[in-house]
């Protein structure tokens, strides 16, 4: 399992398309920084293909006032959870 880390909003950047297409069937995707905009209920359809394997960083949602707008299909993790995800993964790939 590989952990992919995306820090770009799907409202501005198309990098999420390449990220999704490069993900294996067990891989996980963590949204951080501006990437957490993709976790909003209004945006999460972009990430349908990885439902159940989609994570978002709680601290980055909270600082943006978005914790309550995060879609319920997204697994919200804090930075400890971020570390855990890297422990469980064979490696990480950052997309920006």
């Amino acid at each position, binding site marked *: 399992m590989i952990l992919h880390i995306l820090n770009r909003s799907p*409202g501005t950047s198309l990098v999420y398309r390449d990220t999704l297409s490069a993900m294996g069937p067990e891989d996980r995707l963590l949204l951080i920084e*501006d990437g957490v*905009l993709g976790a909003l209920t*209004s945006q999460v359809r972009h990430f349908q293909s990885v439902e159940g394997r989609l994570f978002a960083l709680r601290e980055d949602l909270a600082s943006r006032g978005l914790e309550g707008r995060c879609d319920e299909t997204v697994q919200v993790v804090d930075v400890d959870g971020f570390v855990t995800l890297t422990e469980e993964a064979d490696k990480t790939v950052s997309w920006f």
Partner: protein
Amino acid sequence: MSSSLAANGDMLVILRHAPHGSSWLREGLDAALVAAAFGQRVSLLFQGDGIMALVPGQEPGALGQKGTAATLDMLAMYDIESFYADASALDRFDMAPDDLQLPSLPVDGATIAQLIASHRLVLTF
């Protein structure tokens, strides 16, 4: 979204970046504040991801970075009172115009074009 609502002014600052992810939004707001302090009539347009600046309930970053929510509260003190929000971005992010930190007028593309035309100087951040 009537075109008659597009104000004239000295400077239009277009804010296209979300808070916290980069310093664009903060540095754009700083430029707006200073221009207003210098007596310019300043309008702000929140466009694209920039409308995230208007989400209520923002907090400092994990290391204590200030963010920009507090700066928005200072705008009125500087007599900046013309706030516009890109209607297509509001739609895209499912944000209601009455659920914004600042009362902002939703504007469509044609009105944005008029805003750009009717301000002497336009800066994008």
